[in-house]
């Protein structure tokens, strides 16, 4: 079977195999059939880790690949737009870390809550947002995810329980504990995911949140996306202990290969079940960002280009899934077609973003408050303006 599939692939890729034979092959193996993949074993702290065999299917992998590829293309487009000065201010890119959010989504529903830091473009996407919304927001246009008012670091999606998008390092962690508190208060069978980085792991408010979560058994999963650099400072220069998954002390933790979407998925399924029954758990995702901290940071003054290129060659999360799909006999042409369609989607989103209108001046005083009554606020010249309220921004 393996030999046949290899030759089919080769021939198929070379375009030498007629479509009929390819289709015949696929009819033998259904794309929804489950198969097992081995991932790197998990490191555990105060808990018995799950085994390192993950069940998946072609269908699932295709879905994951599409999402990750979309994330990748979107972030690269953002890079180009930033260099073209169409995106200003801060822009923190997620390329390299796609497997983390994609794997998390594979284990969750939209009833679970997610909150993260400023590196949030791909979270917005995975939580049901569109590339168009992200692009328009980055360009400060009214069609953006936050109507052009938030920018790169402040994207949210209420319907999908995505709570942003937070600018201050670590401030989202207590918010995440609050999301879990509300879930427990309302007796919902859901978890909250509070994401932060290795830099934020040294914030005091993280420990305040851990303590409260542990005290009240809040259903929160603390996900530390350890990309090994807090802006320009390597983890070993900022943290006495960089085994982040152990730093919850009495709170159990797992360390996961964050470049492998299946490992992330398995660990998050485990974590969700644990959190619902017992309370908080820390997941350290061993991941990497190809770009610098943000677009202002070249990303090469504190790490070697060799390190970056080695990561790309050996552990790239998107490439890994692609290779796995091809190894499982998935049609390379189908992958190419999907990639082409994603590229088109991203390019269209960029063009639409460029063409979109900026938020009108009337929106300056819109939604500062909710349904304000008798509120007269003062303008620059000292005259008065009544703030308006319209959550739909219809005018």
């Amino acid at each position, binding site marked *: 079977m393996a030999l046949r599939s290899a030759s089919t692939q080769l021939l198929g890729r070379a375009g030498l195999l007629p479509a009929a034979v390819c289709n015949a092959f696929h009819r033998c193996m259904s794309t929804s059939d489950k198969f097992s993949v081995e991932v790197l074993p998990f490191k555990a702290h105060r808990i018995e880790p799950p085994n390192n065999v993950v069940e998946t299917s072609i269908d699932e992998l295709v879905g994951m690949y599409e999402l990750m590829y979309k994330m990748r293309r979107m972030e690269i487009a953002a890079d180009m737009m930033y260099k073209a000065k169409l995106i200003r201010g801060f822009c923190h890119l997620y390329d390299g870390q796609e497997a983390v959010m994609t794997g998390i989504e594979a284990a969750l529903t939209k009833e679970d809550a997610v909150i993260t830091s400023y590196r949030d473009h791909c979270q917005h996407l995975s939580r049901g947002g569109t590339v168009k919304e992200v692009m328009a927001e980055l360009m400060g246009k009214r069609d953006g995810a936050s109507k052009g008012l*938030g920018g790169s670091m402040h994207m949210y999606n209420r319907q999908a329980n995505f709570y942003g*998008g937070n600018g201050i390092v670590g401030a989202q962690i*207590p918010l995440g504990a*609050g999301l879990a508190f*509300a879930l427990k208060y309302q007796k919902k069978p859901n978890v909250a995911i509070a994401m932060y980085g290795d830099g934020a792991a040294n914030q005091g408010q993280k420990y305040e949140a851990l303590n409260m979560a542990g005290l009240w058994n809040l259903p929160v999963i603390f996900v530390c996306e350890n990309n090994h650099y807090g802006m320009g400072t390597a983890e070993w220069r900022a943290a006495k202990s960089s085994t982040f998954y152990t730093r919850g002390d009495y709170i159990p933790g797992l360390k996961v290969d964050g470049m492998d979407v299946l490992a992330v998925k398995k660990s998050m399924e485990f974590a969700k079940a644990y959190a619902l029954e017992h309370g908080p758990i820390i997941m350290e995702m061993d991941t990497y960002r190809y770009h610098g901290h943000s677009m202002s940071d070249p990303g090469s003054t504190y790490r070697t280009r060799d390190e970056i290129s080695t990561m790309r060659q050996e552990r790239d999360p998107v490439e890994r899934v692609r290779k796995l799909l091809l190894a499982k006999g998935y049609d390379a042409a189908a992958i190419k077609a999907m990639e082409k369609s994603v590229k088109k989607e991203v390019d269209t989103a960029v063009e639409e973003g460029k063409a979109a209108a900026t938020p009108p001046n009337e929106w300056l005083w*819109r939604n500062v408050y909710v349904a304000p009554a008798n509120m007269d606020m003062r303008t620059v010249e000292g005259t008065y303006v009544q703030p308006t309220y319209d959550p739909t921004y219809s005018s």
Partner: protein
Amino acid sequence: MALQTSIARCNARVGRAPAARVAVKPQYVRGAAQVVAAKKKEIMMWEALREATDEEMERDPTVCVMGEDVGHYGGSYKVTYDLYKKYGDMRVLDTPICENGFMGMGIGAAMTGLRPIVEGMNMGFLLLAFNQISNNCGMLHYTSGGQFKVPVVIRGPGGVGRQLGAEHSQRLESYFQSIPGVQLVAVSTVANAKALLKSAIRSDNPIIFFEHVLLYNIKGETHDGDYCQSLERAEMVREGTDVSIFTYSRMRYVVMQAVAELEKKGYNPEVIDLISLKPFDMETISKSIKKTRKALIVEECMKTGGIGASLSAVINESLFDELDHQVMRLSSQDVPTAYAYELEAATIVQPNQVVEAVEKMCSKVAAAV
């Protein structure tokens, strides 16, 4: 009498004298005769705040309280006394001592639709939570494009007490006033405390709700029934013609003590309790200034950058032609509150200073005529 002993214990713990030093004058309500006491019960301000909390928690299951010692201990100023017995530990949550952490937690919960009342044991402690209050509380509705409301009430005592030392005697209302998206309210009477807290809890905006350490034991009557007071309207305390005195919180009583003195001297001051420190009720304020043509601000906030500084600027800019005298502003000195009694008294505004200020303003204007 367990209540009395526990109050005495409470007073002893915070080093308070049993009775408030300033005599409480009857409240004057605009246009209405003084309320004749039928069988109405007088309660203390902490009880009024407790009633408001209890009524709102009963009415709406999403209302909850969180803070240090609000539950089993009974609340350090008794505002949540025994409420945990009625509503349980989750709805009256004893938090660890981590203001930044539990403020963030309260805001996160509010984003999902709960209505937490976050208590700062002293408003000064909330400096530790300033980032959460400024960024995640005030700004969130705007930056999320109107998606997330943050209906929190952040309440607690502030102001200068009785020799509590500098760090527990902060008057920092003004530190919060520049935060976009929040409302600031300062209560002063038993009636407005209950009515304003009810409104604050029902409001979908984040409200920073300033109580005062020395006012928890003042007595008064609450309004009947489910009375909610507007969060954006100032209160007319005493109608007059000579001068508009704008004040809030405990300074209202200092002003009224001065007014007793001024009445004897033949003055007729108008006293307005600002209530809403952000936004200012410019309708009431400008109506008063147009009538009296003199404005005096009496506040406990700091001179530099205080609430009065903002109000003075606004009055000068928008009501300059209505003024016969520059705006006068009595605020507390820009010093840490000393421990020694005399120095503490010299830090904040005293009634005699209010009397002098009014006399000075009125005589200067009279002389100019």
